[in-house]
């Protein structure tokens, strides 16, 4: 999607996964609008979607970095949970909101660095390692207070997620857009960003070209951890509690969104804009199903199916390229 303008002598119109994604997006949108117009097509509902999209969008953007670099992280939901519990606990005694938020984000960053370090230093398969570290983070999150949830009463902290800019746009959404623009710039215009693509596209060659592939991959994990920290701050503020399972299933959402948005699990491909469209699509589906009172269990089934569908699309695409 992003690299397309670069091709000068590109053939005529070619139907790509991006188009498919946009069409699906439009169809889903129209279906919900027709089926539940009074609940779905309202300003208030859009604000809700925007708010939830912010949390999953940040996690998805982090995942996009990791996937472009050719890796994966299955621990993101637990990073958010650990950070959330840390913030919830700190708020019991500390009133300084900035300090608490900073600490929460730092926790995310540290978790990301830990993942990146273990995986790249020792060259381990990321998916198993992050299953393991995810469980560790999950354990730590519940250890802090010996329970999986802790409420707090700091109003200022709760207030953050309720702020609307110009009275209509939720602040978290503004943050998401800001992060999206920044990360888009990083991926497209910075040396680091291009190195992420290079490493994901051909790791051995990158090493020969003098790119520090391990460091590049480690950085993507750190970025993802950092963004998980911010996402955790948002979701904790929304919930008014530190919750270890605050983002449960987020890894699946994030991977689905990134892959739907054109990222390839083989690495080297993906874009921020694609991921964002993917995130919105998933959120709208989830929102619409909630409004139609469909059981959450069906949503679990759908979530898993969407992940597999996204990956099937990716694999079909790759086979065609050959």
């Amino acid at each position: 999607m992003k690299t397309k303008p670069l091709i000068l002598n590109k053939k005529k119109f070619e139907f790509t996964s991006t188009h498919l994604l946009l069409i699906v997006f439009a169809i889903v949108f129209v279906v919900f609008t027709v089926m539940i117009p009074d609940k779905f097509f309202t300003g208030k509902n859009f604000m809700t979607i925007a708010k939830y999209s912010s949390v999953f969008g940040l996690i998805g953007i982090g995942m996009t970095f990791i996937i472009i670099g050719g890796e994966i992280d299955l621990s993101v939901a637990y990073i958010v949970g650990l950070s959330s519990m840390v913030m919830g606990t700190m708020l019991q005694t500390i009133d300084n909101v900035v300090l608490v938020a900073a600490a929460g984000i730092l926790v995310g960053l540290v978790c990301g660095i830990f993942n990146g370090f273990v995986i790249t230093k020792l060259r381990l398969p990321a998916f198993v390692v992050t299953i393991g570290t995810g469980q560790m983070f999950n354990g730590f999150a519940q250890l802090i207070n010996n329970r999986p949830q802790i409420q707090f009463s700091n109003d200022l902290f709760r207030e953050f997620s309720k702020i609307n800019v110009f009275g209509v746009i939720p602040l978290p959404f503004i943050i998401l857009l800001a992060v999206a623009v920044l990360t888009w710039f990083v991926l497209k215009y910075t040396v680091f960003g291009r190195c992420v693509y290079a490493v994901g596209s051909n790791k051995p060659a990158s090493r020969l070209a003098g790119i520090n592939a391990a460091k590049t991959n480690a950085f993507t994990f750190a970025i993802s951890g950092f963004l998980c920290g911010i996402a955790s701050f948002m979701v904790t503020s929304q919930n008014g509690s530190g919750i270890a399972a605050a983002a449960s299933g987020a890894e699946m959402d994030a991977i689905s969104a990134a892959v739907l948005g054109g990222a390839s699990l083989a690495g080297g491909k993906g874009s921020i804009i694609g991921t964002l469209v993917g995130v919105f699509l998933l959120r709208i589906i989830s929102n619409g199903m909630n409004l139609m009172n469909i059981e959450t269990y069906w949503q679990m089934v759908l979530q898993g199916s969407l992940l597999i569908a996204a990956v099937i699309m990716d694999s079909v695409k790759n086979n065609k390229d050959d």
Partner: protein
Amino acid sequence: MEDVKANRIKGKRFHMTSAWSTFFVWIVICAIMAVLSPYFLSVKNFLSIAQYSAITGALAVGMTIVIVGGGIDISVGSVVTLVGMVLAAIMPASGSVPLMIIAALAIGVACGLANGLLVTKLNIVPFVVTLGTMEIFKGLAFLTTRGVNTPFNNLDFAAIGRGYSFGQIPNSFIIMLCMIVVGAFLLKMTPFGKKIFAVGSNATASKLAGINIKKIKLSTYIICGICAAIAGLISTSQNSAGLTNSGDGAELNAIAGAVLGGASLAGGSGSMVGTLIGVLLLNTITNGLNLLGVSSYWQLVAQGAILVFAVIVDSFKHKS
């Protein structure tokens, strides 16, 4: 550079003895526990370790076969939950134990078939496929009982997981041992097992040697599904209930058990005896932590850390 070299040398030693070194670690942990807890070194406690090893053991047998074939299945925990929920749902209608067993195995075959077909027909990375199906199976499990823990009362059925034979030997442990023996026979003695090793070591070469790699891979996922279903049977029987969280984190233990026992995530190596030792090691640690009154949350941390540790050991083996 020097570091890498040092690791390589260390790795070689691990390679020679991966199952044995796990066995050694197990003995050390037993010794430490014996000092820390007077209760640890009792027959009763060891039988209890044996009883509770059965679920992880059953899962690890299937996982070992999948891993040897070069795949992975992280949906096994959800299969355990699904089996529990479905059995709890049909229990009021009929308490027949054979029916339960057939139902469970059918679920296992279906789940394994789904995973296997997605992996082989559509050529998708196994961990993503099974990540997706993990969620799907769990969703289906919750749909069966609307996400409610469902206890039941069926003494015949409870005997599978809680009964004893030959005096004090837990039935569940006997089931697991049988599975280990069958698994070992399959892997070591049959052409099918040889092919699993071949496919896991080098799929391209295996294909060019005329092995139907898709069929082999598909079979490993079906076997893994069946093993997960048996684990579900044991778990449901031990709990006398279908519990929403009965399979949570089970995949971690299964992978860790297999890898600690010498199975390599790169495929093409692994053994059932090693897996048995790996599973016993894991359950001894859990048992020890319980005896010492360590918080269950620490046990989550330990569970994750052991998996990471197992993978690190595995990677050293391969860098040599």
